């Protein structure tokens, strides 16, 4: 993407943030962070626990306010002292957030009422709310559950309801703060497909905070937070090619990326890099086929005891 020519939608300049601990010390989390986010991007944010990923997210929709530095969203300085309470609500309508635990963010006893909750608080016309709720239900594939109680849904379904509640407020950006961490593989998949669709079909800017590498490679851009700031920033391929730099700050790369990296280190020639199993297979198969008789290899391999 030619980000250089475009105007960033969200822009952070020299943002600092620290928490006060109970014992009165200051715990500095972000230091002089500058970052530009463009409309329509799908960004994955990686970082260790406590590295400041969630802090960054909360600064963007004004749950937290930076100690210093400026944040502009769509050209408006949200760190300006002139911000009124209405302005803050407006920011939060634009920048939706979905959290980790689905049970902490559903408020109503019926799915469609839960989705309507945000709109109602914004004072949207009832007929318009109806329209938006139906549309949001459809977007997250939950229309069949409109009258169900949220408590009887699976984790993945609950998260999709939470997402629908955000979509109904017509945000342009949604931040997912480890929204898949509590879900089983199927639930993760449902939520990730939904996120990808919001980004692709509705042009919603997505910031997805995760520890899951398979999810990170779905993004267009990966931002790694470490040492109180942006440590790496690039496409998944660029970021994950820095295997050693990532591991030195306690982070992983996708399993097959790690495998190919180790094979190269062990002297296996003819490998590039890979993010997913298909890519890795495409590189490994020619090597496997070329040099040994397949049957002999199998005999040799079977002798190796199961560890």
């Amino acid at each position: 993407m030619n980000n250089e020519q475009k105007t960033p939608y969200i822009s952070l300049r020299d943002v600092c943030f620290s928490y006060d601990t109970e014992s009165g010390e200051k715990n500095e989390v972000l230091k002089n962070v500058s970052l530009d986010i463009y409309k329509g991007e799908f960004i994955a944010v990686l970082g260790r626990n406590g590295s400041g990923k969630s802090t960054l997210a909360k600064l963007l929709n004004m749950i937290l306010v930076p100690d210093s530095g400026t944040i502009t969203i769509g050209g408006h300085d949200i760190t300006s002292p002139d911000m009124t309470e209405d302005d803050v609500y407006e920011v939060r309508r634009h920048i939706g957030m979905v959290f980790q635990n689905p049970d902490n963010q559903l408020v109503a006893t019926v799915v469609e009422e839960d989705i309507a909750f945000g709109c109602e608080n914004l004072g949207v016309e009832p007929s318009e709310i109806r329209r938006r709720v139906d549309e949001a239900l459809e977007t997250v594939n939950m229309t069949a559950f409109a009258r169900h109680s949220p408590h009887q849904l699976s984790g993945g379904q609950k998260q999709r309801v939470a997402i629908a509640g955000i979509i109904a407020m017509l945000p342009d950006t949604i931040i997912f703060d480890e929204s898949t961490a509590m879900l089983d593989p199927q639930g993760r998949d449902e939520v990730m497909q939904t996120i990808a669709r919001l980004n692709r079909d509705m042009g919603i800017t997505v910031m997805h905070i995760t520890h899951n590498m398979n999810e990170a490679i779905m993004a267009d851009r990966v931002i790694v937070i470490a040492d109180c700031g942006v440590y790496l920033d690039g496409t998944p391929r660029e970021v994950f090619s820095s295997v050693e730099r990532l591991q030195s700050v306690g982070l992983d790369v996708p399993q097959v990326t790690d495998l190919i990296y180790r094979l190269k280190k062990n002297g296996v020639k003819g490998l590039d890099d890979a993010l997913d199993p298909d890519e890795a297979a495409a590189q490994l198969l020619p090597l496997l086929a070329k040099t040994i008789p397949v049957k002999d290899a199998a005999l040799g391999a079977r002798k190796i005891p199961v560890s």
Partner: protein
Amino acid sequence: MSSIELQNINYIYSAGTPFEKAALTDVSVTFGGGVITGLIGHTGSGKSTLVQLMNGLMKPTSGTVLLDGKDIWAEPKKIRDVRFRVGLCFQYPEYQLFEESVMLDIAYGPKNMGLSDAEVKRRVADAVRFVGLDPSLMQKSPFDLSGGQKRRVAIAGIIAMEPEVLILDEPAAGLDPVGREEIFGGVRAFQRERNSTVIIVSHSMEDMARYSDELVVMDHGRVHMTGRTSEIFRRSGELTKVGLDVPQITRLMNILRNAGAEIPDDIFTVDRAAEELTKLLAERKG
């Protein structure tokens, strides 16, 4: 080393009401001693119900739970003893911290067991060592710690009770790679040193591939399959069918095999794959 055996367990929520729902149907499974067993299955497959039956938090609608061959409900008044012997650590246990200091929080369980102060102190020190907490944190408020540290304090609180059977529900959920390694490493050290039975409920197939010895796979309230972790991950097709996943490495190995490459079928960690492929590809060079 203790074992837990469940025999013909049925558990029905809200029995006798219109909301009646069978959570477990005819479950018979044994969790043997001296290994880490992963308990996996889709949401609602009955994993959490199963673990709550194992330490007597819930009573089966029918069927028997045996701890070392003895029915845990034979003397309902002694169920508290079972809960000391079978330690259950819930999901997100850090939300259950409440004491003024890390030390007091970890000591809470053993104190309630009526142990002497010296014994409590020893157990707390041991537990802290297992979970890899920095001893300098002991006098701090648990609420001043990071998420990963809080999680470890909570798990230490269970380990300090030195249960014969340790059950952890998603102990590493939401933790970064280093945090996961520390938690699972600590659990492994505890299991080895005490030769105890450890059961881990998890949705992460990558973690289970790395850290479990055996697996019990649940599906819709029934035990779908059990076996060595290596055997279960060979059956990746079946895992996918019951709403589970396989690690990225297992998927890669399947692709290679399906394309005709002869690769051993027990590879499901990066370490093993790197070792094996290096061997194969190096052999070919020479």
